[in-house]
């Protein structure tokens, strides 16, 4: 059940939706310019598919799918690696006991991903520092610090660095009126516009977005380290030594 109100101002139409808790939320979109799916959308889809196939075809022409020697259960290659998309996990296995890295963390990730849409709408849509600023500052700084300490305890440097970076970025947005660190950068006139843009972008991010960014950065870095920087005995190597 929803009610659409008339416009209050002459120029800005506004709508107020009254939602019953038990009703599924559903909003009518405003009037938009529509085009025919066929051919406009379809042809774009076809082109996208063609380009995908062209790229895949080219890759397949120049790079052969790997095929090593016949499986030999008596001879473990060094290093023995899982498929690349699991190498972030394998990297974590290097630091944590298998129950943590192999089960707990992936399970938490999946659960976290699944419950994302069930957060309260308003809580997560707000940009991070829009309200209850001091409380959030202490809470978040404490949380980030604890996480960093935890990672440092297990010497998970590959995860610690991006965590610290994201944490720093997140907190650097806090003093937005004085602009703190960013203000200093912004005063350098040549880059002023760029940094203003970045700052504005970051300041608009909600807490959920910050957490997601942290997760994606972490996943990418761990996977890259596991894939490209790990050699015999899971020791650190440079990619060209692999």
């Amino acid at each position, binding site marked *: 059940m929803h009610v659409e109100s008339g416009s209050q101002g002459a120029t800005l139409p506004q709508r107020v939706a009254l939602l019953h808790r038990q009703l599924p939320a559903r909003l009518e979109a405003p009037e938009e310019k529509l085009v025919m799916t066929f051919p406009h959308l379809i042809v*774009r889809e076809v*082109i996208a598919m*063609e380009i995908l196939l062209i790229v895949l075809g080219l890759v397949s022409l120049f790079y052969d799918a790997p095929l090593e020697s016949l499986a030999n259960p008596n001879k473990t290659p060094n290093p023995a690696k899982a498929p690349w998309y699991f190498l972030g996990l394998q990297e974590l296995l290097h630091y944590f006991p298998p129950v943590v890295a192999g089960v707990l963390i992936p399970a938490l990730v999946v659960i976290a991903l699944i419950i994302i849409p069930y957060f309260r709408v308003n809580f997560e849509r707000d940009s991070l520092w829009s309200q209850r600023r001091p409380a959030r500052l202490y809470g978040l700084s404490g949380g980030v610090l604890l996480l960093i300490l935890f990672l440092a305890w297990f010497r998970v440097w590959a995860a610690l660095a991006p965590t610290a970076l994201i944490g720093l970025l997140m907190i650097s947005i806090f003093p937005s009126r004085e602009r703190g660190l960013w203000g200093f950068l912004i005063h350098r006139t040549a880059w002023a516009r760029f940094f203003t843009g970045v700052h504005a972008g970051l300041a608009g991010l909600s807490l959920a977005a910050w957490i997601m960014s942290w997760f994606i950065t972490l996943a990418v870095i761990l996977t890259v380290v596991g894939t490209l920087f790990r050699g015999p005995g899971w020791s650190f190597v440079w990619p060209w030594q692999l």
Partner: protein
Amino acid sequence: MRRISLLFCLSSLALLLVYAVTPVRDYLAEWRRYQKAFNRFAEEKFRQNIPVRTTPLTIRQVWNPALDVVDRCVTCHLGVENRFLRDAPQPFRSHPVTPHRLGEIGCTVCHRGQGAATTVRGAHGRLKWWEDPMLPSQYLQASCGQCHPGEAVPEARILSAGRETIRKAGCTGCHKITGVTPVRPIGPDLDGLGSKVRPLWLFRWLKNPKEYLERTSMPNVMLADEEARLLTTFLLSQKAPATGNAFVADAAAVELGQQRYREARCISCHAQGGRGGSSGPDLGRVGGKVRLEWLESWLRDPKALFPQTRMPQFSFPAKDIRAIVSYIASEFSDSTVDAQQEQELERLLPAATRDNLAAGKKLYQRLGCGGCHRLKQIEEQAELGPDLAGIGSKDVDRLDFGNLRIERNLWSWLFTKIKTPRVFGKNLKMPDFQFSDEQARELVVALLSLSDKKIPARYVSAGQQPVPLRTQGDFGKILRKYECLTCHSLSGESGRLAPDLSVIGSQAKPLWIAAYFRLPYSMRPIMTERMPLLGMSDQEIQTTVRYFETVLLEDSIAHELFPLGGPELQEAARGKELYFNKYGCQACHQVNLAGGYVGPALDGLGGRLFSGYVFAYLKNPQRFKPAVLEPNYAIDDSDARALTAYLVSLPPPRAKEQR
């Protein structure tokens, strides 16, 4: 919409282009190029009236599930089975003559490589992820060994030589090697060594055995000076229980000694400065090696000192032994050592204290001396080196190449290991056998043949396993006492120096044999090679001859061809005619000092040999002596009979020069 149309058009065209590449590439496949080239080649040959057929453009393969073979080599090597293409350029050349059916066993069983591949690089297997590249031709015979295990393969000379070397060099002392029965111990027992050899010799021997004896099987264990001295002290402490009195050389007996030395034909086995036989060690410098009192007891009874020795026991009287030892002491001295060096060594040798002896023993064990030598105080040790089963298909990744920059493959590794055993790292123990490059290559072939590849039983050659000879009883004792099989062979066993004895009872007459034991002489006109004078007792001679008569027989030959009192004169006369005119035997054989030098003299043949054997021999000389030079004339029965009649009626030599 215009941009989109253009984009659509371009991307569709690009798609078509990208996906047209693969069919084109397939059409231009390597193997297709080779087959087209072959067809051009075949047409040209056909114009020259050489029967070479063109091939339809298709992948060809040999498939043998039993051998796990899928070989597409024949897709490009199209002429392998065409004998008219022996000189054709590769890949069309025909395969060299082989007793194997190529269409059945395929190519990779012998050549290795990747049979399933249809590209040159892929098939020849020199790729990162293919572990079984083609064998270089110099090691190819390794593959023969997969189906011909543990036996000499006459057609594979290199392989057989390698296997022989494995046996002879005593590799089995340290390594377990499938198909080679361990010959242990290959070296002499070392108990009583302290009573046998001189310290300086031992020290120098331990440092480098080949310096004293070129042909020795003993490898260079690469000892530092201190280690060698410690081991010398340890080994010298192994004294014989009853050390005889000091031997004093008797200058007056030297001449007698020389005579006995010559009579016993010592030189048949022992060379002297490189000249002479090779069954025993070179005695050229033995004076610098052994103590004379040891030599004396050795000559008295070699088996008492070293039960495995191949030296016969000569029944010399004590006087003769002393004379021989005196002769050896005067004649075979070692000019490369002098008293000063001996004193120098005595000074440096560690004292035989309990600690030093224990350290020496430890060193002895660490070096694995027990692989070849026995020493009572040390228990027999297990193999020191790795088991070599499956070494021929060992994974290259599992080989330690150290810092060496050699080709990363099994054969280069094996070759390098054999040539320079300790080059791949520290703490390696394998001694340096100082093999020549050729020997090393032969060994590599023999080792590569020890592969893991599973060959079905029906493809594995059973070979001819000689029945192990077990001669027991009195004759067995005599056989061992005089080590007859050092020179003679019996049922395919052992020596090749002297005639085979397997059917001697059907060949030679007992009386003559007995006489020959008492006084051996040479059968051939210009050679002095003969059996040594062993000094057998009458009892022993009787036992031996009886054994010959009753056991070593060939049932298909009757002793006598002519009943009662020999052949008729008429027949003998016809035989003489045949001997001189039809067959020209005098070209090689002497009768009454006239004739050739190739074969033995035939005077008195009738006294030596049974006529039945002479007849059978004439019919087919190679039947009894496969390697004999005498041609097989395919003599018919009546001619052979006449020749036999003539030969057995020849009188004994008028004047036989005898030593």
